[in-house]
């Protein structure tokens, strides 16, 4: 038994959960969705164990390379989903979100991602690593849920307009309000973890809280997109389609900050 076995078990459990969810989508049996949720919860606990194991084994926070941080992002996604599901009982979001989580897990286990636990370079040896990365990724996990519910909104909305909405489908209005609630949780977390903690740590390590490094700039861009979402919605009363599109762009910007910047743009954040 070791961390990679636990990771593999988690991966398989998530796939089984997705299987139950999709059978729920097809059969409409509430019981399949309930089983799916329990299976995700089990997977989440195994995943938690895997992360703890990794932390003990490597002696540092479990998000210092791409494999680790992807695994943590998938964990945050599962957590965000479990919270949203218990709170709002939106079973139909489950299958799609599980696909994203499984995609992230698959990416993490791909041979392209170095998964070897390496000793921490000097700049990363700080408790700010914990605060900065975990809070940011948790915020992004809620953006991921908003992304899924926004896409579902667009589909539901166009079906309702054409009058071909299926019996028992979640109303577009509910999807719209869940998207907003996810952004309302994700935005403060992202601000705190990504921007505030990021600035504090940058100041502690580099002597400057802001240097327009591409990763910093892209997290600001992500932040601006969600600020736009909130202002158009709260002040100008935008709802529905336009809101959903902004939330989708926001999540894509967050993902570009997370992946794209590392591979396409060089900068100070070159190690993560």
């Amino acid at each position: 038994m070791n961390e990679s076995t636990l990771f593999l078990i988690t991966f398989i459990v998530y796939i089984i959960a997705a299987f139950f969810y999709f059978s729920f989508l097809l059969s409409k049996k509430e019981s399949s969705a309930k089983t799916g949720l329990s299976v995700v919860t089990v997977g989440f606990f195994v995943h938690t164990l895997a992360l703890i194991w990794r932390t003990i084994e490597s002696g540092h926070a479990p998000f210092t390379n791409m494999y680790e941080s992807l695994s943590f992002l998938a964990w945050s996604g599962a957590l965000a989903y479990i919270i949203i599901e218990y709170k709002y009982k939106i079973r139909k979001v489950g299958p799609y979100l599980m696909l994203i989580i499984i995609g992230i897990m698959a990416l993490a286990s791909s041979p392209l991602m170095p998964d070897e636990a390496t000793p921490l370079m000097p700049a990363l040896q700080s408790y700010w690593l914990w605060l900065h990365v975990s809070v940011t990724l948790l915020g992004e996990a809620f953006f991921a849920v908003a992304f899924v519910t926004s896409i579902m909104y667009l589909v539901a909305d166009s079906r309702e307009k054409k009058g071909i909405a299926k019996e028992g489908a979640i109303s577009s209005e509910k999807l719209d309000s869940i998207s907003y609630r996810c952004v309302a949780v994700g935005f403060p977390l992202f601000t705190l973890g990504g921007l505030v903690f990021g600035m504090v740590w940058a100041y502690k390590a580099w002597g400057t809280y802001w240097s327009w490094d591409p990763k910093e700039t892209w997290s600001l861009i992500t932040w601006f997109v969600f600020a736009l979402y909130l202002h158009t919605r709260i002040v100008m009363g935008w709802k529905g389609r336009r809101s959903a599109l902004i939330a989708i762009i926001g999540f894509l910007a967050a993902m570009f900050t997370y992946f794209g910047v590392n591979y396409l743009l060089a900068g100070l954040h070159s190690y993560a």
Partner: protein
Amino acid sequence: MKSFIRFLSSVIRFLSSVKLAIVLIIIITIASVIGTLIPQLRSAEEYLARYGQISELLMQLEITDLYHSWWFKALLILFSLNIVICTLTRLSPKLRRAFKPNLEFETQTLLAAKIQERFSKNLNLEKSKRELKKELRSAHYRIKETEKDGAVHLLARKKILGIFGSDIVHLGLLIILIGGIISSFSGFRTNINISEGEIVQVLNTEFKLQLDKFETEYYPDGRVKDWKSTLTIIEDETPRLTKTIEVNHPLTYKGHVFYQSDVGWNWRNPILEIRATKTSDPTSFTKAFLRLGEKEIWEEENLEFTALQFLPDFIIDGNQPMTRSLDPNNPAVFIEVYRNEEKISSGWIFAKFPDFSQMHSEEEADYKFEFKDIQAAQYSGIQMSKDPGVNFIWVGCGFLMIGLFLAFYWPTRDIRFILKDTVGKTEIISAGRSAKSKLALESEFTRIMTSFRRSQ
């Protein structure tokens, strides 16, 4: 004067528009994206090679240093003004709502609310009011009351600070922007490369920095774990503060912060190991450890030689020896050889190419000079920064987070009541209002009213 006021008010109207804020957010976002796609602060040649004809335009529009360009700064200033005016124009109705709320509500408006109830209570007005207040207080509501046309008006509210959440966020952002401006005008950074035992005057300050000790810690696999420098600040010739700094743990003295940034070797004036051998008799040789300008005397052969110039990364550029970099990729030293005060030979010798020496002999000399090794002093790379704006940033971040918390997690709720005396009984009309937590208010409202109806 009149036209000036009209002009001013139209400027304020322009700046108070949320549409402007949205347009500015979009423009600033797009500009920021462009700044990450076009590499910043490169040489003109690089831009020409990359973008050809339009490179000149890019440089003229300062897109090559976009985040510090005049137009980007202008956008940020306009955005700040926009935030100030937007916040201020929306503040006074909120302040009135919080501190001088209108208690004169109409029955009709209350009944038009989504969350509302109208019923009759089997107690007189005075008792009903007392019971109702008790219920509201136990649910942590604060109550204001007034009388109008013989009816009692009650306004019960909680989490009223929530309505100021967005204003506090904006205040935080402004403080951060002000901090940024202060940083960009009076912030100051410099690199100090300092070797053990060295004392360096710190640029733009009254004090000196001394490196007492420097060490590199390694992991078992040989990777660098940490760099530690023990620094002493010397002011007025007296040591004031000594601290060991490492990455992530800087030293602060009078607003100047010293960071451990890296390690390096000083290749400008290293110790050069030069070996001279007599070609006709290889058993006769000498080894010298020289710094530039130092002289080595080889008594047996009655020779003297000196190292005059050192280039860490030798290259010939238009007949002129140059160094390509400060890294020792191709170290070369220029030496001169004397006998009886007379130069007999001189030239470049190379550490990596011992056979490629370019000694120009004044007379046929029977000596071979080899550049065997170099030892450079290790220095600790310290970065010093003084940034008076940074405290504004932290205060601004504090307001930002408090504001976000209030805006999202401290939803204001209020319940309005009209109590009318109807011959020993009391007619009660009530309506609840909450912009951000309707569902929660609805269940709380039902709970309070149910409990109130049961009360005696």
